């Protein structure tokens, strides 16, 4: 079996299940803002949103190791077995953490993992931005500009994910207050503002992913 075709195929499938399913999350979030819906309806929407959101999160975790395999298969760069193994360990561990967080959202372990994830994303984002940025500026360690640009933008994706997490945080308290004490214009305004801010972050994420896909397919420079 041709390794380039295999890893290209998996890379594309991850892109498909990342961006494609995220549209479902985005749509459910827009519906969630509507103050005329009952709290039960909005809880169902959150449930739907959370289930579908698993797909983009898992794809995010796995796209880098798969991308590394593709890089090696295309012979763009020499990728050592040790680096590949590390990327897979990180990717698979992250997937496990995502499932643990999903099942234990309100428990201490879930909250701890969510905090660790933010730090993890921050550090990995910095790593990719540094590698991509330095390569674009100096031509090393990544000589191909399109590839360096992809890595730089991939780093920004990590930071966008953190921004999303922070922007969506103010949603929880007013939303739960609506469930406990009923809807008020102030609570609804706070919920809408948090969702709107998060949706702007999501749009940035989509643009980043689309540009990354463009760079990888078209290789314009």
């Amino acid at each position: 079996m041709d390794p380039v075709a295999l890893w290209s195929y998996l890379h594309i499938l991850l892109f498909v299940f990342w961006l494609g399913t995220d549209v479902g999350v985005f749509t459910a979030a827009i519906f969630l803002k509507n103050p005329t819906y009952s709290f039960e309806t909005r809880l169902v929407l959150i449930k739907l949103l959370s289930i579908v959101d698993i797909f983009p999160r898992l794809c995010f975790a796995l796209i880098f190791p798969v991308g590394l395999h593709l890089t090696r298969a295309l012979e763009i760069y020499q990728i050592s077995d040790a680096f590949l193994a590390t990327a897979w360990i990180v990717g698979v561990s992250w997937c496990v953490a995502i499932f643990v967080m999903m099942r234990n959202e309100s428990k201490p372990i879930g909250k701890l993992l969510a905090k660790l994830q933010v730090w993890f994303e921050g550090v990995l984002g910095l790593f990719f931005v540094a590698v991509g940025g330095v390569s674009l500026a100096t031509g090393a360690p990544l000589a191909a500009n399109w590839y360096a640009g992809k890595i730089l933008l991939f780093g920004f994706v990590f930071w966008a994910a953190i921004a999303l997490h922070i922007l969506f945080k103010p949603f929880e308290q007013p939303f739960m207050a609506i469930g406990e004490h009923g809807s008020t214009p102030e609570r609804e305004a706070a919920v809408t503002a948090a969702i709107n801010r998060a949706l702007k972050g999501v749009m940035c994420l989509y643009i980043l992913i689309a540009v990354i896909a463009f760079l990888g397919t078209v290789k314009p420079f």
Partner: protein
Amino acid sequence: MPVGIDSVVLLLHVVFFCFWLGTDIGVFYSSKYVLQADLGQEARTYCLKIMSFLDQLPRVSSFGIIGTGTTIGILRGYFNVAPIWILIVWLICFAWIGVVLYLYVQEHHPAKIAPVKKWDFRARVVLIIVLATLSLTSLAGHGVTDDKWLAAKLLVITGIMTCGVMMRLATRNFGKYFMPMMKGTATPEETRTAQQMMGNAKRWVLGIYALLVVAAALGLWKPF
């Protein structure tokens, strides 16, 4: 490196694949809530709204993928047809996308869309016959392409279109059982029938997913 038309159309082909298969996952999960009898009527109504809205992306993308796929096939010389077919196929695709969007915008006017729905169904059956003919004649060595992988891909796309038609047939009288559910007046029998119908339709949907993955693999691998 100059940006070639081939790579841009290829990227669009992948993006349409993304909004077909990926977004359909959202449709699939929304449909679960729509038929959950223990959920409130309002919650199911809005899940139905989300499902219906999201469903437009895969419907539009399916024609986008045909248009971009044909363009790539002709530009790269996989299809033994004149380049004018790019324009013809795109005109058909845009017209069909118009029909899809018209059916969505007018979905609350069943009498108005009934004839369009009927013609859309018939046109899909014609498309299946055309695609099956193109793929089988190509596999036999007398068709529009000499590449067997592409002929096989056309056959897989025929299968996808057939699954879509079978799904429509499986949900033909769905509204009759589903509307009482949404009004809260459904008998247990009606609820069960609606759920069974959706269950049957889901088998065809899963068939579409599986065949889409196979079609993508054939396009990338070109194994024969």
